[in-house]
């Protein structure tokens, strides 16, 4: 039995034209460079990669905020290009990293959470307050904060408000852009567990963008590793954390610091420089930093190879 894909992207390119000066020609920057991905209903997809690898651009494309230069996004097997922005909003909702900037400081909690209902012009306005209170209850916010302003709340509470706003219209997919990294460590686990509970309760699908590999390991069922606008490895979480295949995934996951100082800082072999995305390396874009570089890596770009449970894009695994 195949699970229907709630979200699918096919060969997405997002190119920005970067001006290098008044009289110089503009150069293209491929923020997302030919990415295809399927997200099955009910799954939690972790999206990891260094800063600048195109994760956030991809998130914006998934939210319908950015029209990709090329390629197709399908929500529930319907192309996004044919959908109204309100239809997209009903199906896909974001949760942002910083709850201090994701809530309008001039609006009360009730007004923030009910905004989706007002925008969608939901039926029965008299039930809106009840729906807001139900959703607040769902995310663990006490009813008394209904008339509070964001400035009167803690970071964790604010993030709960942001989650409530995302969930009030019961979307199918929630895109979480670093949902916990701006929070206190003690609150991070609360929010993560809340996300896990909500997923079971509401049958949600998550795309979780994170730098924190522990978060991804804890919550994701499948992980996609991005490097310089390409999806270099997609695998089930357990497989990836046990037996990662792509040298970049290996380096990334080995670079996690351990609390034991006697182990020292692990050497990721990545070197310090992240290549300039305006002028990406030839062949496999990862070859200048790769520990297992082979002769043809700098001339030939690897193609995605099906590994059974996922995809890896590396010459090492070519038969």
């Amino acid at each position, binding site marked *: 039995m195949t699970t229907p894909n709630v979200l699918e992207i096919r060969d997405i390119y997002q190119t920005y034209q970067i001006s290098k000066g008044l009289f110089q020609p503009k150069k293209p920057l491929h923020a997302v460079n030919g990415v295809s991905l399927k997200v099955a209903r009910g799954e939690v997809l972790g999206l990891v990669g260094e800063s600048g690898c195109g994760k956030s651009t991809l998130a914006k494309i998934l939210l319908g905020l950015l029209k990709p230069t090329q390629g197709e996004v399908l929500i529930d097997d319907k192309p996004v290009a044919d959908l109204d922005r309100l239809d997209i909003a009903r199906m896909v909702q974001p949760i942002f990293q910083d709850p201090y900037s*994701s809530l309008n400081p001039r*609006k009360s909690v009730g007004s923030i959470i009910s905004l989706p209902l007002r*925008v969608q012009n939901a039926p029965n306005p008299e039930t809106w307050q009840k729906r807001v209170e139900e959703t607040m209850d769902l995310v663990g916010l006490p009813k*008394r904060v209904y008339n509070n302003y964001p400035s009167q709340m803690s970071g964790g509470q604010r993030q709960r408000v942001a989650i409530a706003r995302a969930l009030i219209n019961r979307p199918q997919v929630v895109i979480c852009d670093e949902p916990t990294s701006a929070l206190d460590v003690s609150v991070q686990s609360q929010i993560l567990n809340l996300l896990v509970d909500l997923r079971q309760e509401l049958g949600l699908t998550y795309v979780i963008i994170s730098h924190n590999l522990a978060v991804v390991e804890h919550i994701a069922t499948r992980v996609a590793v991005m490097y310089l606008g390409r999806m270099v490895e997609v695998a089930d979480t357990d497989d990836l954390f046990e037996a990662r295949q792509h040298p970049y995934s290996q380096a990334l996951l080995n670079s996690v610091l351990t609390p034991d100082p006697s182990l020292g800082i692990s050497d990721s072999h990545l070197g310090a420089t992240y290549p300039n995305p305006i002028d990406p390396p030839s062949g496999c874009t990862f070859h200048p930093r790769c520990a297992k570089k082979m002769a043809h890596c700098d001339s030939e770009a690897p193609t995605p190879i099906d590994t059974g449970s996922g995809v890896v894009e590396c010459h090492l695994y070519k038969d």
Partner: protein
Amino acid sequence: MTVNTSKLPDPATILEPSPTQLLTRRAFGHTGLMIGGGILLIMLIMALFAPILAPFDPYDQDLAQRLIPPVWHDKGSWGHPLGTDNLGRDYITRIIYGARISLLIGFSAMLISGVLGTALGVAAGYFGGRVDMVITFLITTRLAMPVILVALAVVALLGSSLQIVIWVLGLLIWDRFAVVMRSATQQIRTMDYVTSARALGCSTLRIILSEILPNVANALIVVATLEVAHAVLLEAALSFLGLGVQPPEPSWGLMISEGKSHMFFKPWVIAIPGTAIFLLVLAINLLGDGIRDVTAPENRN
């Protein structure tokens, strides 16, 4: 023994004060704001109730009673508390009626320029790109024109009436609104709540009205007060130069202009309307500074 719990506040209502309450509390603790607001309030009452408050008719001339000094002068009397001008018109009456013209011009010009400048500035800041380029060019063009000179030229061409002065000033002083609103909007539009509103499917108009404008309102109010003061001063200058409000209207600038030939021997003739302009502009500026301090406490120095 039972404790009467009905007197205790419900725990649900014990909250940190809401932003509005905090704002009121800070506003009443701010001396400059209170002084500025107080003077402005007095001026507003003067303007609104001029016919009741003024002891004489502002246009009534009495050539037998010319240039009577104010009451604190040796020859002054309570008959004309601030004396009379060179046509024998009661000075305090004309000051009171003059507040009407100054405030009318100040607030109307501020409203016109505020709507124009805010619309342009928010559009430039929100849309960026080409829109920003065009609007920035408009702002630069406007900044390159000397206000008084252009106002004089236009008034000289079109004739001077109260309405024309208001429109000319309103269409000339929108630059500060546009500049401030542009940068404030640029700052706000990168916030996640704007992205979030877009992801919720809000229309651009809705985002601008309900997400952007409330968050740039502080800056808007401060600029608005400064522009009222600016317009009041410009009106006084235009009237002084003879191309603003026309006689016999009781404008403060015009009163200074009419009194300037008596400046050396009867200095109160220009000192009194001068003080009135000074007080009004000071009050508006104090109010603007106070509002800035109160609404953005983190920027207080």
